[in-house]
């Protein structure tokens, strides 16, 4: 292990990372072991390039290709597209019926037609209900048209369901919206079928089923994207609250059963004018009463009624009611509200993240342009010193500068850390970044305050004060820059090796410079803190140089 690094050099995680990147890119280990045949020398982009492909195929058929695939989001692939690329569809003489059914279903004309029919169904139903009781004979043709329209709409809905079954039967049942559609349509179909079969009894039940026609308007929920989002948000919020609701149900049970026993005397008492006499008589009644207490309705009247009976002990009944009120209606209800609020906040945050992602990309684009511009007007101005700005020559400024130095170094580290996509590389770096992160935090706060002081002169992206804005700018735009679609980065191989070597050496050099800096500083700072009477020759040496 000692011979891994140069002699007398400390272990530097960043340099190690560069080296392991080098090893990995060139597959050095396999090469040095003599397995140069097993080393991939081409990437997949070279293979797909038609100009290079022929040359590659002629050179050596056993060449190995390095695969590095970045998954790209191409958007929604509809089921029809998938079906189109299947082999049996392409090879058959006539396109299958499912393809045509899917095309019809996705055609915007058809979907708008269905939406129009749903609205029409609602209106027809409204008018029909109004005219149900009237016996005006002149309105009879109108009633007939309404009835025919209702039947026609139902027929079209059934047709739509059959079309969906045609396109793919198994997928139909996997989507909850489709199942809901099916249930609603069947429910409104049921009374008609029953009527046709000739069952005459129990007209109230039939009447109720007819009114289920109105449920058809609920089909609207599946069509509009906005409503879907809201309903999905609601369902998610409810899902996360299942345990809470179960706990609430358990408490309902406990208090209901206890209530039957506690108020047995009250139920059995022969007292005459008791308003809520039967409220705790049975388990079902007790459940309803517990729910009434949960909604805080007339609880004091109930309690006073119970007090009228002398055998029911006042203490226990008051304890029961007050305890249930505190626990159920005050605490539980507020917990439910709190969970709903946090869930909705989370859902909104997720929806916003998508938009924020896009914004980050736009900003990264601008940043890239700025960098290119900046490199053009570089160098002579960078070394212009700004003594006027740093008028506090005390240790505070030194500390700030050191922090800035260290933080810039840590920024570079974080840049490099973020660049590694390979698992191998950036393992040991986080240790350094973690230790430097604290300094970075303090420095960023210091830099933000000092940037607010110093931002008076420069508002644009400029060099002299710019280095205070630089870090935050880089930090913000880094992620977006990384994810941007880069043009092909083509390197000549030996230049690439040289680049990695130089980068590694640069890290060592930077480390050495930092050490020298620290050495110089620790010679000076003891002098600043101690009394001026104690003099040492060392400061004179440095003054001389």
């Amino acid at each position, binding site marked *: 292990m000692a011979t891994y690094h140069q002699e007398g050099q400390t272990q530097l995680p960043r340099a190690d990372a560069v080296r392991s990147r080098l090893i990995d890119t060139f597959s050095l280990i396999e090469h040095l072991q003599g397995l140069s045949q097993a080393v991939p020398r081409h990437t997949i982009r070279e293979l797909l390039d038609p100009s290079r492909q022929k040359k590659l195929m002629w050179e050596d058929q056993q060449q190995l290709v390095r695969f590095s695939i970045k998954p790209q989001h191409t958007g929604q692939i509809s089921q029809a597209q998938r079906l189109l690329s299947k082999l049996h569809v392409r090879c058959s003489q006539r396109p299958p019926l499912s393809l045509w059914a899917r095309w019809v279903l996705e055609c915007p004309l058809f979907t708008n037609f269905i939406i129009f029919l749903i609205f029409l169904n609602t209106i027809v139903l409204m008018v029909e209900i109004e005219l149900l009781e009237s016996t005006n004979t002149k309105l009879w043709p109108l009633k007939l048209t309404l009835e025919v329209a209702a039947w026609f709409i139902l027929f079209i809905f059934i047709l739509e369901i059959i079309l969906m079954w045609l396109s793919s039967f198994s997928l139909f049942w996997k989507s909850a919206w489709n199942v809901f559609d099916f249930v609603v349509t069947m429910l409104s179909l049921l009374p008609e079928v029953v009527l046709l079969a000739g069952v005459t009894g129990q007209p109230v039940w039939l009447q109720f089923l007819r009114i289920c026609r109105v449920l058809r308007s609920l089909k609207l929920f599946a069509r509009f994207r906005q409503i879907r989002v809201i309903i999905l948000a609601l369902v998610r919020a409810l899902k996360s609250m299942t345990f809470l609701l179960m706990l609430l149900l358990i408490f309902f049970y406990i208090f209901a059963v*206890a209530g039957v026993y506690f108020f047995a005397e009250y139920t059995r008492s022969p007292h005459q004018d008791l308003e809520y006499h039967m409220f705790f008589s049975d388990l079902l009644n007790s459940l309803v009463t517990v729910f009434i207490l949960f909604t805080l309705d007339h609880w004091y009247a109930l309690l006073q009624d119970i007090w009228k009976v002398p055998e029911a002990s006042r203490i226990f009944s008051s304890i029961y009611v007050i305890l249930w009120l505190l626990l159920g209606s005050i605490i539980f209800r507020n917990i439910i509200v709190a969970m709903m609020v946090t869930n909705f906040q989370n859902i909104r945050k997720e929806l916003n993240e998508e938009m924020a992602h896009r914004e980050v990309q736009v900003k990264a684009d601008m940043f890239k342009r700025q*960098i290119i511009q900046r490199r053009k007007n570089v160098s002579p101005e960078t070394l212009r010193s700004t003594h006027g700005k740093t008028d506090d020559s005390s240790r505070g400024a030194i500390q700030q500068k050191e922090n800035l130095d260290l933080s810039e170094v840590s920024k570079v580290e974080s840049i490099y850390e973020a660049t590694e996509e390979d698992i191998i590389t950036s393992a040991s770096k986080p240790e350094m970044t973690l230790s430097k992160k604290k300094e970075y935090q303090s420095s960023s706060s210091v830099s933000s305050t000092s940037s607010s002081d110093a931002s008076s002169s420069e508002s644009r992206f400029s060099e002299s004060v710019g280095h205070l804005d630089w870090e935050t700018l880089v930090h913000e735009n880094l992620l977006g820059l990384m994810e941007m679609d880069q043009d092909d980065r083509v390197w000549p191989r030996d230049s690439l090796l040289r680049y990695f070597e130089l980068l590694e050496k640069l890290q060592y050099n930077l480390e050495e410079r930092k050490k020298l800096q620290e050495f110089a500083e620790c010679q000076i700072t003891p002098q600043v803190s101690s009394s001026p009477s104690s003099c040492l020759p060392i400061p004179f040496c440095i003054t001389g140089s």
Partner: protein
Amino acid sequence: MDVKRSIRRKDDEFRAFVKRVIMSCFFKIIMISAVGSNAFFTALWTSYDIRYRLFRLLEFSEIFFVSICTSELALKIYVDPTDYWKDGYNMLDVVIIIITFLPYAFRRFLGKQFTYLHVADGMQSLRILKLIRYSQGMRMMITAMRQTVYTVASVLLLLFLLMYIFGILGFCLFGSQDGGDYDNWGNLAVAFFTLFSLATVDGWTDLQKQLDNRDFALSRAFTIIFILLASFIFLNMFVGVMIRHTEDSIKKFERELMLERKMTLMEEKQVILQREQEEVSRLMHMQKNADCKSFSELVENFKKTLRHTDPMVLDDFGTSLPFIDIYFSTLDYQDMTIHKLQELYYEIVHVLGLMLEDLPQKKPQSLEKVDEK
């Protein structure tokens, strides 16, 4: 103590066996089914009709449940007498057993006509709480709720204080024996109930009407101020406090999850990097490479095989032009900063030097002053 230890040593195997039995799935299933069925039958017990018809079945299930509970308690205490009391759910078990034995105890020792017998009967419904320990989700929920207990308790205490103040005030104003509203404000307990009814704004108009009938001057102001304070402010403060707590706990949970994931990832990376280093050093120690003293010599041969015209297409950010640009800019800034720092050091040292030159003149002066004294 020694005797106990020797006893323990002898039946360690049996203890381990019993412990395995208690932790097993089968035991859990028995417990869950016993508690569940007993809860169901307790619900059925409430109706006199069903009790009359299914008396034997219900009695049998009752005996079954009690026996299983006590044996579970005995087994668990036998396995671990000292640690048993640390778990909250075990304490709950003990409390429920005590509650279960209460009706028997009352009937046996205090006779059948004891007035609070039905209270003891009613408390049997608490048995269903034994089911909570078997469900992971419920346990998490209970631990989450436990953290909100302190804030809830403090808000309730504040509410109690407020009600106390207004109760005394109301009693003095409205509760006198003659001419006052004795029923609702006569003593402190009734006054509390009235105030709680106002706080939950249930039927408060009736109470207000009672006060109006007796023609009290301040009653309206009193009631309205109390309702504003208690119902609008305090009871809604609950909601705010709970929201903050749930948000905090969810954020903490997510942060811990993120941290855990990062730690495992870093460990994996560490392992892989370690392995690679070992591999390379091993290569350098190998026989044919014995003369190579450093890594760069090792790859000399490899470098010679690389041709300049051989292109290599790379995908990662580290070899892209924007990265190089950013890196150079950062290095430039770094250089600038260090340059400034060095100039600052020179200045400091220069100032110190000047101070040192001034010093020898001050010293003899101070010595003279000392001599004078």
